[in-house]
């Protein structure tokens, strides 16, 4: 009897867990499950402190904060190809500013969990209509890395120079997601060492997309100064 009651209580708990957004009917169950699991994980994060920019954008490095941020930005999740065979997620303001579209690559590609979360939080920033959906800036021409090598995509070989794939502010999608991940990497107290390493790897990579000297300096001072 106690066993049956426990099972009922368990399923009642699961069904009461709400993410504050809905999935379209055509989003495959496997994608829905994976996205729920990923968001459940981010909802458990704990820390003692955070950087100033993180506090300004999100608040504390805390699972509840991230869950609220996501729920307040994304009202629905649908299935779309996002116009690209390699895309994982996108926001199409022309259809619906608060709707996020997920592609089959969300579960098809073997990304670390942190990478999947970075993508959905990057896209959730694009839902902010009040900020013009935080449009990206065109990367400079030439767009060189620290060693003077042109920044380019390694699987298409296409140079990023001139592409709308950069940010001039710490508050856009690249900036906010890198600030979130770098804070998790530095301050999360209940993350595995793999999650913390992954968060650092993907944050450092996103930092390369910040192109204004002022924004770079602010992020550096906030998170990269030893």
């Amino acid at each position, binding site marked *: 009897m106690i066993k049956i009651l426990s099972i009922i209580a368990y399923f009642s708990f699961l069904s009461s867990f709400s993410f504050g957004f809905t999935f379209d009917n055509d989003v495959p169950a496997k994608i829905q499950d994976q996205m729920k699991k990923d968001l459940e994980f981010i909802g458990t994060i704990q820390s003692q402190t955070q950087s100033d920019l993180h506090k300004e954008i999100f608040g504390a490095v805390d699972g509840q904060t991230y869950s609220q941020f996501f729920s307040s930005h994304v009202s629905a999740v649908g299935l779309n190809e996002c116009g690209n*065979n390699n895309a994982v997620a996108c926001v199409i303001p022309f259809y619906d500013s608060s709707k996020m579209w997920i592609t089959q690559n969300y579960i098809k*590609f073997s990304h*670390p969990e942190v*990478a999947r979360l970075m*993508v959905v939080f990057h896209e959730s920033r694009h839902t902010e209509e009040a900020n013009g959906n935080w449009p990206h800036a065109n990367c400079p021409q030439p767009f060189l890395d620290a060693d003077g090598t042109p920044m380019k995509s390694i699987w298409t070989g296409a140079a990023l120079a001139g592409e*709308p794939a950069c940010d001039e502010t710490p508050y856009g999608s690249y900036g906010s997601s890198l600030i979130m991940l770098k804070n998790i990497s530095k301050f999360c107290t209940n993350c595995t060492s793999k999650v913390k*390493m992954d968060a650092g790897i993907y944050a450092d990579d996103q930092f390369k997309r910040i192109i204004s000297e002022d924004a770079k300096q602010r992020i550096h001072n906030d998170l990269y100064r030893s």
Partner: protein
Amino acid sequence: MSKRFLISLIFLTLVGAGFFGTSHLFTQGGNYPIRKIFAEFAIQHSKSDTAAIQIKTHVHNEIEIRKKLKILDEIFQSKNDNDPRLDLEFNQISQETKEALEKKYNELHLESRNERGTIVFLVGKSLSSEKDFQFLRQVLAEAPCLSLSDCTSNLSHPTQDRNSHLGSVNEITLEYPQIVALKSIETYLANHSPDPPLMQIVREASHSKSPIVSHMATSLEHQLLKDKDMRLFI
């Protein structure tokens, strides 16, 4: 029948049971009474205590390895990178466990980037031997993965598949095992003197066909050389 003959007979029976009849027990959790009896008996009655201890150690290691591989499979299945067992169950793992992990690495599909990177991470946490370094060298020497759908074939259409917006996420994942290998070396060298074989691996990686790996390895090499120079001047 002499006592020695009887003991030998029982010993051989238990060996047979231990290695053939009960092999399935090694794949499951819980107690292993036959194994325990066998190991105890071997220690008590073997002519060579050293050999008996070696057998016991081998059996113990085998069980540990299978247990850890089972845990790893569960973590891979769940896709939960925050499973605390990644930290709790894989600290200071034995050389035999590392070799089993390396074998598993080679069995995984090339496209299993996160799973492969996770194994590199686990081996990299306990770098201690030349064999470990050789594993990292092998990982870093792999041909770049061209597509998350098929590492060996770049099927991307030059315009349709261009994804400058979030392309760098894919690019990092494409080279994830190699990046983790370099991170492991970086962490190891933060606490150890840079020894020539490891420096050679970094140098080789700096010539990788993957721009990301090449760039990271070059930066690491420069950083290490800078630190070394600093140590010389102190």
